[in-house]
């Protein structure tokens, strides 16, 4: 067969497959003959971690398809992932380094650019000390990249002003898992989705933001109509289309609802008393309290009281509680509606409470599973220690033993690591705005669009010596940069992503980077060398070398990845830690007998032992039901919330380059409830101004019965209409995560 015959055979096989017929030729054989080779990889977008097959021909990515063998997505993709290959060749790809000269970014050589970066960083460090420089990374960077940056900044330069954008999305979930279970990241895994008989989805538009997970839920429900789905969200979204019950609280007032559900669960006897006796402590946040104290605390939260606070129907709360209590299994899912709040950690705790009280945790079909927004927020930043207070392998900077362990692996004196945690994201950018931080390295993220209350921070970012390593230009951030460095994109570099369910997955390099772009790890090693720290980075000849050093930091930790070297990750569809040895299959439920770290001796017959806590008991919290930082008032009567749409991701630097996706959502808009619109005389497609205490934005009105009354919703994707000029930068005192999801606003006709 010649090439044309093979192409035709491929086409015929595809047709045959669509009607379930196995034609003479296996597609893989046909692809090989047509010159297309397929490589197992992972999607670059959200935190679901969909397996993806990348089709390469003549050094170009020509197609992608869902990986049928990957148990995360079973061959499904969403429309973003389907077009991911088009992003590689986008016109906005940054192809060579640029340096700002006389206010304009001009093309430079790598040597010029890196010399300038090293010189400036060296100057600042020598003159003002290491704390005058900072690093701002990303939950989209590979674990290897974050690890190198961590080693350079914390271990060699000696600054803990090292943050990443997961502070803006996952920090409250981290706080929730740590305080409740004593260890970060979910207890269960996606496998529980296939066994759950009840789903509670809180503050999450799963259908648009985690479409493949939603698909799994829908599939489960369509096969088992008795399965119940409860959605708690101020907005009607495509997610609530499958809901049996939708509770629409006023944004920011759902803590009371969670307590009210807990109260009914306790009152009507849906609790697992044995489990509570063995594995649960109670706390008011400051000290241990008794089960009885907790019950007394709950007394106040009658359905009627909570319904009044949250503006919902008391019967719905009762119904939700009874369903949750009566269902043999339950999975709760949540995202930014819970995390991006000034009481995000508390709300996380209250979700975990329900699972602990009913014992619906650590068994098939039961989990409180925080969905993540970025592909490697869990892997690179939470596990890799990419924040100002943590070190790789779920370690804390403040812990001298932890510093010692990491300093040994980094081959530096322990004194190199500053014992004091650095500045969290908002504090970091406040310090930039005040001029305290003089040089900032931004990798793989776009803070000039994604920070809240942008007006406060933009000038500082313009003034600071700003280095941005990104695959795209211009972005809102590269526009302010002094040096921009072209970074290799997905498929142009190899590395590991860790998704929502503790699963680490390998991505191969299948093509060469465009233009002069380089792997971020390579750029950082270059910088280390130019700063005079080359010695401890020289052995990093490939990403695999970096990974091998990184997994050493996880050895014996709760997130043990010693059993996941590259050779194994290349064979399997990811591994869920703890996976201490290369013959270990990975862990579906932590803290249970299946977990290799489960201490049988201490557990003494208990079903679960939360080894992150000294006595192995998780904590149920009696947290006060506090409202949002900026409640609505007569001047600003609307609650403003922001979010995503299915077709776009974050600041659109990727999805904005695909014409098909750009057309699919015809531009920025604000959703207004029809009743509010009628009162204000606003018609669909009218130009309106959304105003908060921090800024204003002219948008097209989309009058639609989606947000509840007195609520506005603005997707935050479009750089020409920065939703974050409006949002509030008040932070959760525990997690330091800003309250993007609620602020007071008004809307007027423009």
């Amino acid at each position: 067969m010649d090439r044309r015959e093979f192409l035709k055979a491929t086409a015929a096989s595809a047709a045959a497959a669509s009607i379930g017929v196995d034609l003479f030729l296996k597609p893989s054989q046909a692809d090989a003959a047509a010159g297309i080779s397929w490589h197992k990889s992972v999607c670059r977008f959200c935190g679901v971690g969909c397996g993806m097959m990348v089709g390469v021909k003549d050094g170009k990515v020509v197609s992608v398809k869902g990986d049928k063998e990957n148990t995360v997505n079973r061959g499904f993709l969403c429309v973003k992932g389907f077009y991911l290959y088009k992003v590689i060749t986008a016109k906005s790809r940054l192809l060579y380094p640029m340096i700002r000269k006389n206010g304009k970014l001009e093309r430079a050589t790598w040597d010029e650019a890196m010399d300038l970066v090293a010189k400036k960083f060296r100057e600042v460090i020598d003159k003002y000390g290491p704390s005058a420089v900072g690093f701002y990374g990303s939950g989209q960077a590979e674990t290897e990249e974050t690890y190198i940056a961590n080693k350079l900044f914390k271990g060699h330069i000696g600054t803990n002003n090292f943050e990443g954008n997961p502070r803006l999305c996952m920090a409250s979930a981290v706080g929730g898992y740590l305080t409740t279970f004593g260890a970060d990241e979910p207890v269960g895994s996606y496998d529980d989705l296939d066994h759950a008989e009840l789903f509670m989805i809180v503050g999450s538009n799963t259908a648009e933001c985690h479409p493949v997970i939603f698909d799994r839920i829908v599939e489960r429900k369509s096969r088992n109509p008795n399965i119940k789905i409860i959605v708690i969200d101020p907005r009607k979204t495509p997610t609530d289309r499958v809901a049996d019950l939708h509770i629409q609280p006023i944004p920011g007032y759902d803590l009371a609802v969670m307590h009210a559900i807990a109260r009914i669960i306790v009152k009507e006897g849906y609790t697992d008393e044995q489990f509570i006796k063995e594995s649960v402590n109670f706390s008011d946040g400051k000290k241990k309290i008794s089960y009885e104290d907790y019950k007394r605390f709950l007394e106040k939260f009658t359905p009627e009281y909570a319904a009044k606070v949250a503006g919902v129907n008391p019967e719905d709360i009762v119904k939700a509680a009874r369903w949750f209590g009566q269902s043999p299994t339950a999975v709760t899912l949540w995202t930014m509606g819970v995390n991006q709040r000034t009481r995000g950690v508390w709300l996380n705790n209250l979700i975990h409470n329900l699972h602990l009280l009913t014992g619906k945790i650590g068994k098939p079909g039961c989990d409180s599973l925080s969905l993540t927004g970025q592909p490697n927020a869990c892997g690179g930043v939470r596990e890799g220690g990419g924040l100002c207070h943590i070190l790789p392998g779920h370690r804390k900077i403040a812990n001298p033993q932890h510093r010692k362990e990491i300093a040994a692996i980094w081959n530096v004196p322990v004194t190199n690591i500053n014992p004091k945690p650095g500045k969290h994201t908002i504090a970091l950018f406040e310090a930039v705005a005040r001029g305290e931080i003089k040089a900032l390295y931004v990798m793989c993220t776009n803070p000039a669009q994604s920070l809240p209350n942008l007006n406060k921070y933009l000038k500082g970012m313009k003034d600071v010596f700003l280095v941005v390593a990104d695959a795209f230009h211009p972005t809102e951030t590269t526009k302010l940069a002094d040096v921009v460095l072209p970074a290799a994109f997905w498929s142009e570099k190899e590395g590991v992503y860790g998704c929502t369910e503790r699963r680490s997955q390998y991505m191969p390099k299948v093509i060469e980077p465009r233009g002069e772009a380089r792997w971020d790890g390579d750029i950082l090693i270059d910088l280390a060398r130019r700063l005079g720290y080359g010695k401890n980075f020289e052995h990093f000849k490939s990403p695999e070398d970096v990974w091998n050093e990184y997994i050493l930091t996880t050895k014996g930790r709760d997130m043990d990845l010693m059993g996941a070297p590259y050779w194994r990750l290349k064979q399997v569809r990811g591994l869920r830690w703890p996976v201490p040895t290369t013959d270990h299959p990975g862990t579906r439920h932590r803290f249970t007998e299946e977990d290799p770290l489960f201490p049988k001796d201490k557990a003494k017959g208990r079903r679960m032992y939360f080894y992150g806590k000294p006595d192995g008991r998780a904590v149920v919290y009696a947290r006060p039901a506090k409202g949002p930082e900026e409640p609505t008032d007569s001047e600003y009567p609307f609650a403003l919330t922001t979010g995503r749409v299915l077709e776009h991701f974050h600041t659109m630097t990727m999805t904005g380059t695909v014409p098909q996706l750009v057309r699919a959502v015809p531009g920025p808009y604000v959703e207004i409830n029809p009743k509010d619109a009628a009162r204000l005389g606003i018609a669909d497609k009218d130009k309106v101004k959304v105003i908060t205490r921090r800024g204003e934005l002219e948008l097209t009105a989309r009058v639609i019965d989606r947000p509840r009354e007195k609520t506005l919703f603005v997707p935050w994707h479009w750089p020409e209409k920065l939703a974050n000029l409006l949002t509030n930068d008040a932070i959760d005192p525990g997690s330091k995560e800003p309250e993007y999801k609620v602020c007071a606003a008004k809307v007027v006709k423009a």
Partner: protein
Amino acid sequence: MLISSMIVKTRPGKADAVLTQLQKIPRVTTYGVHRDNNIIVVAEIHDIKQLENLTAFIMESIDDVLSVSPTYINFEDEVQE
């Protein structure tokens, strides 16, 4: 040159007659009748427009065709930018 495959569905019992007609169209190859009344067809075409024309033609001018569903198109030459 693009290569596209499609499934031509026919009325029950008419697949063989339709197959004979399809085989008369230039640059069209058939790959047999499957599942009673589905014919696998592969066509060599110049552009997408021609594919549309071809599917319309098959629908319109061959008796007993119920539907024409393109299933695959080899677009490798168009990947640039």
